[in-house]
C-alpha cells in the first residue's frame, strides 16, 4: 500500500523545485570547494602535498551537517506544503489508503531524495578531486562514501522530526525557522568538546563521519529516527483532519 502512495508522491513533487534542491545542495558544496581550490591551487597543493584527498574531504565535511539540516527542513516543508496548500489532506485521507502508508510514504520519498543528494555529493567529490588532478590511485573511495552517506544516516532523527512538524503545522514558517536555527546551531554545537558534544543530536552527523566510533552515531541516528517516525505516525493516524 505504501508503494501506491509513494508512486503518487513522486508524481506530486514534479515542478515544485524539490528535484532542483536535491542537486543544488551537494553541487553547491562542491562548487564552493572548486572555487577555493581553483583560486589557491598552487598554495594548497604544495602545502597539503601527499594528503590532498584527505584535506579536500575535511574541507567539505565542515559543510555537510549544516547542508543536511537545511536540506531535511526544506524537503520536509516542500513535501508537506504540497498537501497543505489546498488542504489536500482531506481528499488524500478520504481515499482507501491507511494513514500509516501516507506518513511512511512521505518519509520514504524524502529519504530517497536525500539519499540521491548524498550520491550526487559522492560523485561530485570524486569528480572534483580528479579534475584537480589529485590522482585516481590515491582516491579514498571508502572515505568519500562514508563522508557522503554516514552523516545523513545520523541525521535521520531530524528528518523524522521535521517531517512530522511540517505535516502537523499548516504554517510552514515555524518548522522552517526551527530548521534554519538547527542548521546554524549545528555549526556552533560542533565547537563544544567532550562527552556533551557527543550527546547532542545536532552533532551526530559530524561524528557520523569523523568518529571515533562512527557506527555508534549512525546507529543512534537510525534508532532515534525510527522512534520519532513511529511517534509521528501514531499521532498522524489519530489526528482529526479538517
Amino acid at each position, binding site marked *: 500500500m505504501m508503494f501506491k502512495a509513494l508512486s503518487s508522491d513522486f508524481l506530486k513533487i514534479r515542478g515544485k523545485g524539490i528535484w532542483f534542491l536535491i542537486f543544488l545542495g551537494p553541487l553547491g558544496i562542491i562548487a564552493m570547494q572548486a572555487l577555493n581550490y581553483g583560486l589557491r591551487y598552487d598554495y594548497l597543493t604544495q602545502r597539503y602535498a601527499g594528503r590532498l584527498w584527505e584535506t579536500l574531504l575535511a574541507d567539505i565535511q565542515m559543510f555537510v551537517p549544516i547542508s543536511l539540516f537545511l536540506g531535511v527542513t526544506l524537503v520536509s516543508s516542500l513535501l508537506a506544503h504540497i498537501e497543505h496548500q489546498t488542504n489536500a*489532506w482531506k481528499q488524500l485521507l478520504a481515499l482507501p489508503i491507511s494513514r500509516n502508508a501516507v506518513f511512511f510514504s512521505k518519509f520514504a520519498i524524502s529519504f530517497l531524495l536525500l539519499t540521491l543528494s548524498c550520491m550526487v555529493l559522492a560523485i561530485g567529490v570524486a569528480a572534483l578531486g580528479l579534475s584537480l588532478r589529485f590522482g585516481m590511485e590515491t582516491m579514498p573511495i571508502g572515505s568519500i562514501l562514508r563522508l557522503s552517506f554516514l552523516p545523513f544516516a545520523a541525521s535521520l532523527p531530524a528528518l523524522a522530526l521535521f517531517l512530522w512538524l511540517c505535516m502537523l503545522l499548516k504554517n510552514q514558517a515555524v518548522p522552517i525557522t526551527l530548521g534554519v536555527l538547527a542548521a546554524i546551531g549545528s555549526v556552533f554545537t560542533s565547537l563544544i568538546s567532550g562527552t556533551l558534544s557527543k550527546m547532542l543530536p545536532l552533532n551526530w552527523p559530524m561524528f557520523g563521519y569523523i568518529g571515533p566510533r562512527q557506527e555508534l552515531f549512525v546507529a543512534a541516528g537510525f534508532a532515534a529516527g525510527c522512534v520519532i517516525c513511529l511517534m509521528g505516525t501514531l499521532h498522524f493516524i489519530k489526528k482529526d483532519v479538517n
Partner: protein
Amino acid sequence: MNEWIIETKGLSKRYKGRYAVSNLNLKIAKGDIYGFLGPNGAGKTTTIRMLLGLIKPSNGSVNIFGKALNKERLSILRRVGSLVEYPSYYGHLSATDNLEAIRRIIEAPKSRISEVLSIVGLAKEARRPVKGFSLGMKQRLGIASALLGNPELLMLDEPTNGLDPSGILEIRELIKQMPKQHGITVLISSHLLSEVELTAGTVGIIRQGELVFQDTIANLHQQAQGSMSLVVSDPEQAHITLRQHGIESVHRGKTLLLEQTSDHTVARIVRTLVERKHDIYRVEEKRKTLEELFLQIVGEGTQL
C-alpha cells in the same frame, strides 16, 4: 440493518464543549439521492467528515454498507467517492495529473481519467495546470476525482458552490443520472432547498447540529400543504359548530383557520356552515412553498 447504505446512531462531535453535531441518526437507502440540508454552520461538513473517517466522532457510530466505519474504514472507502467542502487540488499539476495522483492510490484503470474528465466537461482543459482554473472548474475536477473510482456511494458536500447557473444545472443533471444509470447512492449537502428539491428522494434537515427533519421529499411536500382560511360572519359560533362536527379550527378576528384542505373536507365545512345560516365571505387556500417550510424549519426550529 443491511438495507441502509449509511446509518448513523447518536453521531455527535464536540468542539471545546460545544456540539457541532449532536445525536444524529441518519438513514440513507440504497439508490437514493439524499439531500442533506442546513444553513451555514449547521454541521453538514462536520458530519460528512465523520462519515469519511477524517475526524473521530465524540459519540455515536457510523455504519456504511452495513459495516462499522471504525473497523472497516479502508474497505468502505474503496467503494466511496467524496468531495468535502471546497475542492482540494494540486495547483502545479494538470487536471489529468491531479487525477493520476489519486488513480495511483485507488488503482482505477488509466482510461477512467479521460472518462471522468469528459463526464464533468473538462476534457478540453485536461492538460492545463489547475491553479489557472476558475472555481467552477476546480469544483468539477473535485467531482471528477470523486467519480474516479467508480464509487457505489457518492458524498458531495455543497458540490455546486461556485458554479454558474448553467454549471449548477449540469451537475444537477449529472447527479440525477447516478442512481438511474449506475445504481449509485448519493449524499449531497446544500444550504439551499432548491438545490436538491428536484433531485433528492429523501431530505435530512440539520439545524445547529441536530437533525430536525428526515423524510421523503414527498412527505415534505405533504408538510408544506397549506391551510384553509374562511372569513365568516360569526367566527366564534362557526368554530363551535365545526367542533360539533368533529372539525378543529382556530379563529382569529373574522377568520377561521383550518388545517384540512382535502376537497371532501372543505366541501363538508362549507355545507355545514351554510346550513347553519353562516355567511361565508371568502374561502382561501394558503400554500406554503417548500422553501418557506424549509426556512421555517431551520429558522424557528419547529420540530416537525
